[in-house]
């Protein structure tokens, strides 16, 4: 709550986050105003994807963005020692010690926009979808968390890499668009990007009442695998952590 002490900054950051969310939705509006379908996605589905992107990213940033930013500082200044000495799992402490309140603005705008789509009948849905899509949001966040945490763990060896956070932001933008756009003779690239594309697409499709069992299974597999890999990598990296005096 110390962040709220600087009220103007806090309000400005909420406003900035809201503007970014609105711009993403506006971009998709403009794109789909001229083209009715893109790789099999209808206009309503693409707009739903834009709204879901804000929900998933908003939730992900709310839970992890400040912690991932701080991880680099903790390693660089040797302050990770105090966390490692606590009788709590270090990855848990590092990942969940703070939240980013301004990111709730993105989550709120995403939910609001999705509600608007449903009530204006731009997209049809079934009530069962409202329940069934929730686990896939958390699996999507697990995929993004695993990748992001793994990249930030590199700070143990490269504590001066200030661009890692910005790199994560742009990697996450991959999830904004349908994964099918990365097809077309670029299979190697698609294979590399495929897990990321599932993070937002799968909950979007489930919410729209479309169940592609292949994607659902992959979402579960990657959600678990990425989390486990991030954990293994973190434990491996801690062996090389030498603190500021090392």
């Amino acid at each position, binding site marked *: 709550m110390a962040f709220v002490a600087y009220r103007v900054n806090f309000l400005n950051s909420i*406003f900035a986050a809201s503007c970014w969310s609105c711009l993403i939705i506006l971009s998709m509006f*403009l794109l789909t105003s001229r083209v009715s379908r893109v790789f099999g996605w209808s206009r309503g589905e693409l707009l739903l994807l834009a709204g879901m992107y804000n929900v998933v990213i908003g939730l992900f940033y709310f839970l992890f963005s400040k912690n991932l930013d701080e991880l680099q500082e903790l390693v660089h200044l040797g302050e990770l020692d105090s966390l490692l000495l606590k009788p709590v799992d270090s990855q848990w402490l590092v990942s969940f010690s703070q939240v980013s309140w301004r990111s709730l603005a993105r989550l709120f705008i995403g939910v609001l926009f999705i509600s608007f789509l449903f009530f204006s009948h731009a997209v049809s849905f079934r009530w069962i979808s409202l329940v069934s899509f929730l686990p896939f949001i958390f699996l999507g966040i697990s995929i993004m968390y695993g990748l992001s945490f793994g990249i930030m763990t590199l700070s143990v060896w490269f504590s*001066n890499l200030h*661009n890692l956070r910005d790199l994560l932001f*742009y990697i996450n933008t991959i999830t904004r668009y349908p994964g099918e756009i990365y097809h077309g003779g670029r299979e190697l690239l698609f294979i590399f990007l495929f897990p990321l594309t599932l993070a937002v697409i799968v909950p979007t499709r489930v919410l729209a009442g479309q169940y592609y069992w292949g994607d659902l299974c992959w979402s579960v597999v990657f959600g678990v695998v990425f989390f486990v890999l991030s954990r293994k990598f973190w434990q491996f990296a801690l062996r090389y952590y030498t603190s500021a005096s090392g």
Partner: protein
Amino acid sequence: MKKYWLIARNTWDEIVTYRLNFSIWRVRQVFQFLSVYFLWMAVIPSRASLGGYSHSAILTYVFLVTLLTSVVFTSKSIGVGDEITNGNLSNFLLRPVNYFRYWLARDVGDKAMNLAFGSVEMTILFVLLRPSFVWQRSLFYLSFFVVSVVLAIALFFFFQFLISSLAFWVYEVWSVRFLSMILLTFLSGGLFPLNLVGEPWYTIFRLLPFPYLLYFPVKVYLGQLPVVEVFGGVMIAGLWVFLLRALVGVVWSRGLREYAAVGR
């Protein structure tokens, strides 16, 4: 002039020293490019068009915007805010160095590095992706493309300096800068060509300085603007450079009266 050349050279060396940091910055640019490139490839398949843009025109737009972003949207003058906040500005006020020219020299070094790497990346991506590309052959459009890029660089430099100058009054400038970058990304045509927003917004946006950062130079290169509009756009961009320069001068002199070197 020699001292400013040395400053530019030092900035180049500084970037080369932190190679991994710079490499990650470039990887991030590539990621940004790829997501936009594949999106437009999907939206406008070959032999299709959208809003006056053919398949090749839109891909050329994406390539050029990415390259120009490396040149125009990189600026070391972001550091001005930190120097005001932590009091290091005092060092420069005492030295026989023009502060604006110091940061301009740093920008030259930074942009030279980004242009060099951006060109290599775009060349590699061009070879790998083999897009349909518009090759401008008109000397008129090519020369005014260069002129508009120079104006864009000047525009962004003064704009960033203006934002950084807020540090005289506001302790944390990053939130204002973050918001300004979001608006810049949209209003400069970095996400999509601005004429796709339709009227009357397109006309309103063209009166602002932001389209002249990316959108206008690329439109000039594509040869999609009549000669009159090219001249008109260059004049508007030049006027904005003049206005921003004057505004920076006023804000800077007012700010120096407030400056108290609090961090020292």
